[in-house]
């Protein structure tokens, strides 16, 4: 059992998402930073896509009700286990009764807590992810609250020592491919899209990142019929301010798509703070494929290293 003493701003149970349900209008959801989730799970010996806690901007405190191992990844928090420092990117032992405290991160936005054995919560529609909009999945379909007690799964292996890995780095230069309606935007708008340091608006959330900058002008008023959406699509509504769709985005929509963030760079957005700038870099399909492969290899390499440590 994990007893939540301080739930923080928006802590939710998330895994790699609820796939296969978009044609019923159900969002994919899941963690915003997939590599950080997988790293945390690999460190504690869980299947890479097991559920973790996604903690937004720290300010979280929980008591372990059993001995075990845990790992914290993602945003660089000043974290402590009782009064000892906790490094991100490490597997560490914990004793029953010890309290983990995360304060405001110095860098980044979202931290991920994985516990060896995982969370013993029943999946809904094949996933432990919390769908906040529809109010189901995860822990009672909502953000965690002070006093919640989350049941933990049984440990399956015995670790003898701490272990650390080098986490994937993140930045604010996000590679994207031009979208299907890219050519409907004026030349100035196309250039502005790649050249502007876009400010991440405070109205951003797990559904979409709203960006502030020059209004992007589309040269046609042709209305689009509703089409399927995926995380990473950059839509431009009539006010000209782009929105990057995130994991909880609606499944269909009809705004023009100026670009699509490549899958390998999507995780970096999870760590950018409100008010910080984002730069888009135009990339090609082969580069997107290569980035995808590099990321997969980096995680495979990490998994291999951890499997052969003992």
């Amino acid at each position, binding site marked *: 059992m994990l007893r939540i003493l301080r739930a923080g701003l928006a802590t939710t149970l998330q895994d790699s998402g609820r796939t296969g349900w978009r044609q019923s209008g159900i969002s994919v959801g899941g963690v915003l930073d997939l590599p950080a989730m997988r790293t945390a799970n690999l460190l504690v010996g869980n299947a890479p896509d097991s559920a973790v806690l996604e903690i937004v901007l720290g300010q979280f405190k929980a008591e372990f009700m059993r001995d075990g191992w845990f790992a914290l990844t993602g945003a660089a928090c000043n974290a402590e286990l009782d009064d000892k420092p906790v490094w991100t990117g490490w597997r560490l032992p914990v004793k029953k009764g010890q309290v983990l405290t995360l304060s405001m991160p110095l860098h980044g936005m979202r931290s991920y807590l994985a516990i060896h054995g995982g969370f013993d919560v029943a999946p809904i529609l094949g996933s432990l992810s919390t769908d906040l909009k529809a109010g189901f999945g995860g822990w009672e379909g909502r953000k965690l609250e002070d006093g919640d007690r989350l049941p933990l799964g049984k440990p399956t292996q015995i670790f003898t020592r701490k272990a650390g890995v080098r986490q994937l780095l993140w930045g604010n230069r996000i590679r994207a491919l031009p979208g*299907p309606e890219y050519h409907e935007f004026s030349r100035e708008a196309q250039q502005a899209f790649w050249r502007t340091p876009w400010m991440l608006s405070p109205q951003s959330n797990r559904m979409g990142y709203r960006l502030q900058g020059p209004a992007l002008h589309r040269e046609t008023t042709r209305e689009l019929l509703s*089409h399927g959406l*995926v995380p990473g699509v950059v839509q431009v509504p009539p006010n000209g301010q782009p929105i990057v769709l995130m994991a909880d985005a609606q499944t269909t929509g009809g705004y023009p798509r100026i670009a699509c963030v490549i899958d390998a760079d999507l995780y970096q957005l999870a760590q950018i703070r409100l008010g910080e700038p984002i730069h888009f870099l135009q990339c090609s399909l082969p580069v997107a*494929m290569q980035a995808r492969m590099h990321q997969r290899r980096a995680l495979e390499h990490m998994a291999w290293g951890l499997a052969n440590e003992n």
Partner: protein
Amino acid sequence: MQRARCYLLGEQAVVLELEPPVSLQSQQRIWGLTQHLQQHQQVAEVIPGMNNITLLLRDPQQSALDAVEQLQRWWEESEALEATSRLVEIPVIYGRDAGPDLQVVAEHAGLTPQQVVELHSSIDYVVYFIGFQPGFPYLGGLDDRLHTPRRAEPRLSVPAGSVGIGGSQTGIYPLATPGGWQLLGRTPVALFNPHQQPPTLLRPGDSVRFVPQKEGIC
């Protein structure tokens, strides 16, 4: 055959978009293709839209480059799915608190509220696809006289079960949400229940008929 445009969306999705106009006939082929491709090993997920279809590739590394041609071919080989036409009756309490915009729609159409209810509930609508929200049906078939522009100021919260009109579309909100549609009434029927299999009441191809309840205007 209706012309189709196929393209990649990012590096892991591929889209087939048909030339307008929207027709039930081509939408039936989209349902057929959706059903067929769901089983395909290269396809992780299929999202039917209005006159279009989006596939998520399981392994873009292997299949993205060929996916555009492949989807075009699948489309050409596809057949219409005449969905085993189910008629789903949705009880609706029209007007008053349940439908605060009934009067607005009536004035816009030059009809009485009773006539609006009669007209809105006289048609068998077709579910073209489900999207936007869990279980939200995009319905085809709204009578031209009832087309009404969206509200200038969207409501901050539209109650779950609200039945409304937005432009040329009519539909039902499964969950409470902000929304700009003109609200005619409300249904007590749940359109989405994640603990049931299937989780949504409606599916593409269903016919939907609204049945006025005596608690409201009818």
